[in-house]
């Protein structure tokens, strides 16, 4: 019972942790950004799961439907998705500049190059 | 006729006016130094005219501003502070006179900065002397530290900077680390920081807490140079001699012990002080400080360093006297502030004179110098007597009362300690003038003898004044003694 009730959440946690792992592990900056994306997206999945109501339909009012999914998490996540892509775009732009300035986007190489000067 | 409050204002503001004047006239040496001298004399006169009202016990008080509820910058002329400000302002004028000779003779740079910071320091001393509460006192205490720091590093050499670092580190360290903490604790315990006759603490304040507090005060006032926080004083000897003379024989160190006296008398109160368990321990600490510093002084070959350790030792006397918590001990302490000031400043003046005239800093170089510089070395001799505490000098009185204080408190061990350290002070001070007169020329290197003459006349005049002071104080200690009686 517990497993069925919380299955979604646990998978979501696993996804989050994979994303976070990729972020912390570092290495390639683009990989880091992808990790960040996974991390964020899994939070979105979590929110949408919270808004799920058994048997509820999409929150667009229709004749004869009584039960709807919770629209509020949807709204929040719409905003969060936009925030996510905004962050990604900026991060990628930074990665490009770092490549131009350092000649690499491997975290370790950047750090050694910084400590040299 | 100026009102007493205005006099007090004047005493606090005059140094600042002097700073402005010195800054403005920075280009014209003579005018600049005339302003310094004039301000010194005026300040002394102002403080003197406060003597009567204070002696009669009138309330002379001014308030500048209130920082936060209960925490204000306020001043009150009371006997102990007056005593301190009298000496400081008098010796300021004298030292200025001396400095004119010294700085010119020694060809020092940055003289405008020197004179203006000198004035700031004296302003800070006035603030400390007349502070109505611990907060005001703390403010000026820090101003004094900060304004004397550039004086210590005046030479700008690596050695001077290193000395300055130790100076600032210890003084700021102890004051922020312990003193401020003690003030905060006092504030929370007593609800007030005002100096109050009889102390501010309730009778039921836990003694253990007061013990901690007292220790915080004794160590926090780093300027009192109680061991192990005395290292700044020898380090400060890299400063030009007038600085050492005025600040490190009079203003700064005396500010330290003065704060201790004031805290003992007006924050704790002598009765409470006597009942605190930690007092006993701190007394012995001060005693050890006296003895150890004397021993160290004996081993110093640099003249100024020896004088510095002698100061550490003498400051120990004063701290000890205050902690004895008896009226005789306290009087001895307060008197010793005066006597030691005159004696030690003379000694430093002499050391500076020797440096300017003969370019010598080490003790072994001084053999036979008495013949070239008789006035200086006679002054040195008399001042030494005053430090040791034998007639015909004023130092006799303070030593006498200190002895009496140990007797009253039944501290036989401390009494023995005092006597022992007096013997030591004979050993480290007297040989210097004696050898200067009675042994052969120290310059055995065979080079052609250099013609050595006395120091420039302004310096010599200053030496004369303070030496005379040392002797006169034997006969006329009453003015000060009465003041101390009023304070008690």
């Amino acid at each position, binding site marked *: 019972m517990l497993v069925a009730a919380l299955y979604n959440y646990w998978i979501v946690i696993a996804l989050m942790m994979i994303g976070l792992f990729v972020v912390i592990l570092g290495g390639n900056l683009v990989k880091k950004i992808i990790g960040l994306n996974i991390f964020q997206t899994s939070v979105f999945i979590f929110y949408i799961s919270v808004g799920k109501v058994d048997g509820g339909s999409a929150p667009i009012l229709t004749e004869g439907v009584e039960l709807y999914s919770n629209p509020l998490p949807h709204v929040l996540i719409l905003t969060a998705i936009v925030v996510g892509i905004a962050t990604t775009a900026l991060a990628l732009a930074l990665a490009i500049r770092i490549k131009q300035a350092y000649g690499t986007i491997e975290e370790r190489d950047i750090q050694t190059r910084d400590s040299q000067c | 006729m100026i009102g007493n409050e205005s006099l007090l204002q004047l005493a606090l503001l005059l140094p600042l006016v002097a700073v402005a004047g010195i800054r403005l006239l920075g280009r014209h040496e003579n005018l600049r130094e005339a302003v310094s001298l004039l301000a010194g004399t005026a300040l002394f006169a102002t403080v003197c005219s406060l003597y009567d009202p204070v002696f009669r016990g009138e309330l002379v008080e001014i308030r500048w501003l209130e920082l936060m509820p209960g925490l204000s910058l306020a001043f009150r002329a009371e006997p102990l502070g007056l005593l301190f400000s009298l000496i400081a302002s008098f010796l300021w004028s004298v030292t200025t006179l001396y400095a004119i000779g010294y700085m010119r003779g020694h060809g020092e740079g940055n003289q405008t900065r020197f004179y203006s910071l000198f004035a700031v320091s004296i302003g800070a001393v006035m603030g400390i002397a007349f502070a109505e509460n611990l907060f005001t006192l703390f403010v000026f205490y820090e101003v004094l530290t900060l304004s004397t720091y*550039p004086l210590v*590093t005046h030479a700008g050499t690596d050695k001077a900077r290193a000395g300055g670092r130790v100076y600032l580190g210890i003084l*700021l360290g102890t004051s922020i680390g312990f003193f401020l903490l003690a003030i905060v604790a006092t504030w929370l315990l007593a609800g007030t920081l005002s100096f109050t006759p009889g102390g501010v603490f309730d009778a039921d304040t836990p003694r253990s807490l007061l013990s901690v507090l007292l220790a915080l005060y004794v160590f926090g006032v780093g300027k009192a140079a109680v061991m192990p926080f005395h290292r700044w004083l020898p380090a400060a000897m890299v400063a030009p001699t007038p600085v050492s003379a005025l600040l490190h024989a009079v203003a700064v160190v005396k500010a330290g012990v003065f704060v201790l006296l004031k805290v003992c008398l007006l924050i704790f109160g002598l009765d409470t002080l006597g009942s605190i368990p930690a007092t006993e321990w701190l007394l012995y600490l001060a005693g050890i400080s006296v003895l150890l510093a004397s021993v160290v002084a004996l081993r110093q070959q640099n003249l100024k360093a020896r004088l510095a350790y002698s100061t550490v030792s003498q400051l120990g006397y004063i701290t000890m006297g205050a902690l004895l918590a008896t009226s005789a001990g306290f009087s001895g302490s307060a008197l010793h502030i005066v006597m030691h000031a005159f004696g030690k400043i003379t000694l430093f003046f002499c050391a500076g004179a020797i440096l300017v005239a003969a370019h010598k800093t080490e003790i072994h170089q001084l053999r036979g110098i008495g013949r070239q510089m008789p006035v200086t070395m006679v002054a040195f001799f008399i001042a030494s007597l005053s430090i040791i505490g034998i007639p015909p000098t004023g130092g006799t009185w303070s030593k006498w009362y200190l002895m009496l204080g140990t007797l009253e408190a039944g501290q036989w061990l401390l009494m023995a300690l005092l006597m022992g350290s007096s013997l030591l002070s004979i050993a480290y001070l007297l040989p210097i003038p004696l050898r200067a007169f009675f042994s052969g020329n120290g310059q055995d290197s065979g080079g052609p003898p250099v013609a050595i003459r006395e120091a420039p006349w302004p310096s010599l005049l200053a030496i004369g004044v303070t030496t005379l002071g040392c002797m006169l104080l034997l006969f006329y200690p009453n003015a000060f003694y009465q003041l101390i009686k009023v304070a008690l």
Partner: protein
Amino acid sequence: MLAHLPVLQVILPLVAAPSCLIIRKSGLVWLFTFLVSLAALTVSALLLQQVIDSGVISYHLGGWDAPWGIEYRIDILNAWVLLIVSALGTVVLAAAHTSIRRELEEGQQILFYTLYLLCFSGLLGIVATGDVFNVFVFLEISSLSTYALIALGRDRRALWAAFQYLVMGTVGATFLLIGIGFLYMVTGTLNMQDLAARLPAIGTSTTVLAAFAFILVGICLKLALFPLHLWLPNAYAYAPSVVTAFIAATATKVAVYLLIRFTVSIFGVDFSLSVLPLQHLLIGLGLLGVLTASVVAVYQMNIKRMFAYSSVAQVGYMIVGIGLGTAAGLQATLLHLFNHALMKGALFLALAGVVYRVGSANISAFRGLGRRMPWTMGAIVIGGISLIGMPLTAGFISKWYLISAAVDSSHWLVALLLVAGSLLAVAYVWRLVEAAYFHSPETPDKPADEAPLSLLIPTWLLALANLYFGVDTRLPLAVTEMASRTLFGGAL
């Protein structure tokens, strides 16, 4: 119009930002942004006045009632922080023109001002709002613009610093989002008032605890609380000088505000400080931050970096104040919030002047600068003395309150360690003073070469504020006392 003050506070710079792109002349854009921030400052002053006079202001955006729509809720705490942010933002902006003209290319300047305004409004928005999700949105506005602003620094290390900050900041914001999600899950609401009312009934379920933990970590990442501070020193050191001054004076303050808002107002003192071992954690981490960061600061060669570490240390002080868990401690934190903004604003602006003239912020560049740039160095000395906490400077007031709060709640050891932190501040400040005044310059005989007036005036404005608020403490004391009292009164 007065009824709309809460929203105008945020909307003015927010709407002004895109307008910059339409104006397209960098000098004009600067003037425009400056006027806008001045207007925001006026609004925040009026707001504070209004809150003092008539209590909490609630503003319903879109006209929808509180838990359904988004509410702006201004009490004395956020009115205070709004004033700090808008005042410092304005002063720094006044200085920006000269410095930015030298440090950025023509094309980037307009973007700089636009991003500056966006960051400004983002910070104000975080503070003004009474809705937790809205906090997240405005946090991202301010963060994204900050990353870009930092990356505009000329040194290539600015890029790497910005990237690191971006990763850390995004992880932090996502943690915050997770925490908010948990809170929403158990309460069904996003409104702060509503949350505060509904949380006690739920008690200490693991979900609430986890929400608390995630929100805390998320904020502390932004706050650069030790040991989550790693992004900060590089970001401060390599960002354009005025950006450093701006974020040092405002961004961490806003994060501290968030911490107070969440721990004290939303979760409540009882929950935050009594149920959890948070008190020990905050005091411990705060002190650790104070001491380690100060020690590290002593060994920095780059002065911007040195003061950056000092900022980490100062954040420690504020955290300790919160951790004490008393109204007095909170008041000390709120005071330090203000005073530290003044100090760091003055210091970093003065450094901007040095960088402008000398081109470097290394300690060797400071040799003999006391003669070459007497006014700039004078401001640094005042700021430094205030940082140490000398009496008659603003820094003393906050130190005094913090130490008395510690002693009052019998945390003697804490008091002693706080004081030790001050001593370390002496060490690193004095290294700078010594270099500037007691070392001869590497190229002697260089004539006095002061920073331009447009930099010097704002710098001195802040330096004098350090002195003024060290003496006339009525305003900060009254406001912070009222704030800490209402926060604790409301929660207990």
